[in-house]
């Protein structure tokens, strides 16, 4: 989930603490949410509503962030756990994702199949995803059914059955998923590039885990992992939709309040050593088209450079006027797709990566040659002022448009809460983007997009083709 696309703005002027309750009502407000205008003539009488995110912390450490939007036709209930592949140790990779699978296999009270049946009966949606930094579960329903989500999530926070039969079944499913990944040539390339770029940091491992690990993870491993990460003080609940705040706080308190706090999981302290030289990985797989990937270590949201890197990625591949589309896809085409991507919202170190899928018979080194030519060009010549303004406008618009969807807004809040992005970061976001200069762009290109910081990956297509695809690497949706 790209921060650029999902992020929204709120103002944080600080919290008021009242008996353990952090109230954000008057203090946090969506800068760009606004009351319906008189001319809009909405039929609902409450035209003066102003949605604000409210933070509430329960005595057992569970955090709730909700946004009351009375105009939303649905409600999203999401529970975000601060656990992902970043927390995994060698030999047990994939255990976060495996646990996520087990979360759907039932508890004594709600056995396997109950959730699917109940959600289906009310026409709702339910799913989960595991990423490097988090595992999240959600139920999207018509507003009146929100209780079902609370009931299911509070029960499975601590009561998973984890039966050996279910475990054996899910292991097969996860291994099948793992094999599908192997079959997808682009996914394989992304995985190899990450593994090369990160030698020590857990981002080295694919979120789904290495196959031998998935085969060996035991019931007691899963049980230990589950009990040490699934607890109220390691979770944040996000609710967006037409909700009554006090009622919601009370209802969630009733469902989750009695679950005891657990010992907080140890923080991840591993540091990736500075890369000192070009790294390479090459794969030969059945595929339709050649692919080249270049990855460079880059800082995350905590660095002031993250804003310039965000604008840079949009300059490179935001829309058809972007540098890569223009130079590699539209004029003198050698690629069907070319992108420069950067994700600021990561807990650990980030990567700035280029990705180009060539036309048939274009060689991966040629793609690299063109990409690196563009990078070198950015070091010596500044982009035009117009191009920079366009890119900044795109970043800011994307930032605001993303909050229009109820589910998308929930995702943003959950990701921020889980990764530890402070709210004042958003307070200043638009201004920080606006203040990115041509010099900043040139500086970050020169600083980060260097040979000694680079990992190159080539995919040479062989034999029978398979449909290529790229999404954000390693995000797994069940």
């Amino acid at each position: 989930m790209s921060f650029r696309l999902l992020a929204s703005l709120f103002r944080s002027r600080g919290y008021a603490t009242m008996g353990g309750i952090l109230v954000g009502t008057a203090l946090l407000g969506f800068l760009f949410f606004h009351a319906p205008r008189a001319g809009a003539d909405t039929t609902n009488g409450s035209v003066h509503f102003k949605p604000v995110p409210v933070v509430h912390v329960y005595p057992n450490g569970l955090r709730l962030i909700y946004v009351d939007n009375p105009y939303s036709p649905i409600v999203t209930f999401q529970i975000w756990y601060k656990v992902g592949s970043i927390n995994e140790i060698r030999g047990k990779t994939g255990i976060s994702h495996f646990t996520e699978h087990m979360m759907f296999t039932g508890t004594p009270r709600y056995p396997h199949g109950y959730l699917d049946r109940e959600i289906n009966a009310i026409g709702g949606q339910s799913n989960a995803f595991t990423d490097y930094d988090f595992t999240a579960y959600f139920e999207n329903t018509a507003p009146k059914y929100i209780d079902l989500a609370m009931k299911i999530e509070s029960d499975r926070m601590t009561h998973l059955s984890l039966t050996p039969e279910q475990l054996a079944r899910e292991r097969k499913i996860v291994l099948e998923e793992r094999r599908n990944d192997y079959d997808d040539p682009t996914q394989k390339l992304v995985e190899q590039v990450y593994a090369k770029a990160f030698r020590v940091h857990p981002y080295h491992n694919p979120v789904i885990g290495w196959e031998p690990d998935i085969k060996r993870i035991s019931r007691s491993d899963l049980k230990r992992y589950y009990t040490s990460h699934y607890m109220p003080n390691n979770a944040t609940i996000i609710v967006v939709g037409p909700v009554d705040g006090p009622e919601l706080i009370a209802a969630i308190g009733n469902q989750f309040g009695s679950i005891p706090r657990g010992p907080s999981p140890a923080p991840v302290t591993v540091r990736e050593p500075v890369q000192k030289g070009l790294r390479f990985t090459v794969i030969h797989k059945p595929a339709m088209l050649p692919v080249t990937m270049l990855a460079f270590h880059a800082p995350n949201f905590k660095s002031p450079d993250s804003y310039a890197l965000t604008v840079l990625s949009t300059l490179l591949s935001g829309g058809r006027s972007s540098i890569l589309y223009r130079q590699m896809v539209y004029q003198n085409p050698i690629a069907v797709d070319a992108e420069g991507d950067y994700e600021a919202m990561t807990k650990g170190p980030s990567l700035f990566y280029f990705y180009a899928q060539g036309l048939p018979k274009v060689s991966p080194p040629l793609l690299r040659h063109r990409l690196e030519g563009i990078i070198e060009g950015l070091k010596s010549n500044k982009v035009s002022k117009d191009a920079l303004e366009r890119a900044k406008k795109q970043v800011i618009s994307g930032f605001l448009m993303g909050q229009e969807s109820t589910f998308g807004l929930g995702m943003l809040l959950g990701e921020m809460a889980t990764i530890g992005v402070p709210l004042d970061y958003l307070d200043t976001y638009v201004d920080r983007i606006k203040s990115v200069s041509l010099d900043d762009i040139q500086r970050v290109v020169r600083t980060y997009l260097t040979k000694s910081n680079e990992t190159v990956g080539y995919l040479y297509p062989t034999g029978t083709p398979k449909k290529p695809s790229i999404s954000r690497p390693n995000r797994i949706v069940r």
Partner: protein
Amino acid sequence: MIRTASHRHLVILAALVFSGCAQTEIAAPNPSSVRTPAIESREVPVLHSKVFRTILDNGTVVIVIPRPVVPVVSFRIGIRAGSAQDPKGQEGVASLTASLLNRGTKSRDALSIFRAIDASGGDLEATAGRDLTTISGKVLTSDLDPLFALAADMVRHPVFKEDEFARNLEQSKASLLEERNHAGPIARNLFYKSLFGTGPYGHPPSGTMDSLSTLTRSEVVDFYHAYYRPDRTLITFAGDITPEKALALVKSAFGDWTLTTPPPFPTLPAPTNREAKGQTLLVDRPDLAQAMVIMGTYGLRRDDPRFYDALVMNQILGGSTTSTLNHVVRQKNGLVYYIYSGFDAERHTGPFFVVFQTHAPNTPKVLDLTRKILRESRDAPVSQKTVATVQDNLLGQFPFRVDSDDRIASLLLYIETYRLGLTYFTDYPERVKEVTPQSVRNAAQTFLHPEHMVTVIVGPIRKTKVQEGTRVPQP
């Protein structure tokens, strides 16, 4: 993948139960303009808003749902110029025409269009479907005017430069080539072809290698002039916009677009309620491990009054994760990776179909089981409880059809294209609730014909051990 009880083929829409009657209101006359078209409006309870509709003098329809929570607007410009309008021998021309809209107008070349879109911070894309070509835009309210003006320029003044035409034609051919690697499109195209032949839905919207190899720029230009007309244009808005503002925008961009040519020759209607000739078509792909199967027959139009009965019938049969097909074939017998059924209910009669993918040697077993389930679904009565469960599911799903401005703007286009009326938002739950076990049974008897289905199998035919059928060369 998000697990929902819906799937993409049958458009499954339901609404929550709301009181409140629809009312027609006529907007107060606006003294500053000479003639203000009447604005119709209806309540949209699920969104706590209203829907507004009006028609300009030149025939362009404008529909708006204001939803002013976030300063974002989505719009759609729909032109009744879909692949159903492709002339014979020019299959794919609607799609190519749509792809060239952003490649140059009288006042802008492609690169300046790209720059203008990106400078707005919004998105603007054009694509052709079977019944409509759609230009989709989403942008911050503050940047709506220039992006909408650009979209109008693309619709009204495209130039179809020869080099851009050649470039997009090559891209279309490349993607057709790429499609040959996938069993899904091969099976689907053959299925539609054998049911609908030379009718409007008989060919794929993207065209065929044969048709693309002879397509010329002047055919694109002729197609454009025949079908891109104000009286074939529908414009919808959802989000932070008032009906007055939307109308003013459309008037300034499209108001002086006048009819200069007679209406195009009407498209031949698709065959309706015909019994399909039962046949099995086999496409041999020895390189695949799985067989991809589509089987089915004629379904219905979206505006058919039996639509809601068919909808509930299909949900029970194969339209959800708890359906009979999914339960018996997938969960109980573990024979398929997926199986589902649906109707493509559009402007003309589309198909009823069942789709599944299975390990090749299982194919005959799944075919037999599926046919057996279809026979039983046609012959056996349905309980009130089963119908009620599906009704609840459909009603609960409806809000998801309108949970973003983009979805609402698209839904408005759909409502207008398929003539469902502004009362749709309150009609839908009522129609769903009116469905009874008897009407479901009638629908099953009308639409399920396991003996007369077209069955297309793409996969390693020898390994499937299928005993019936005619071999068809890979397209």
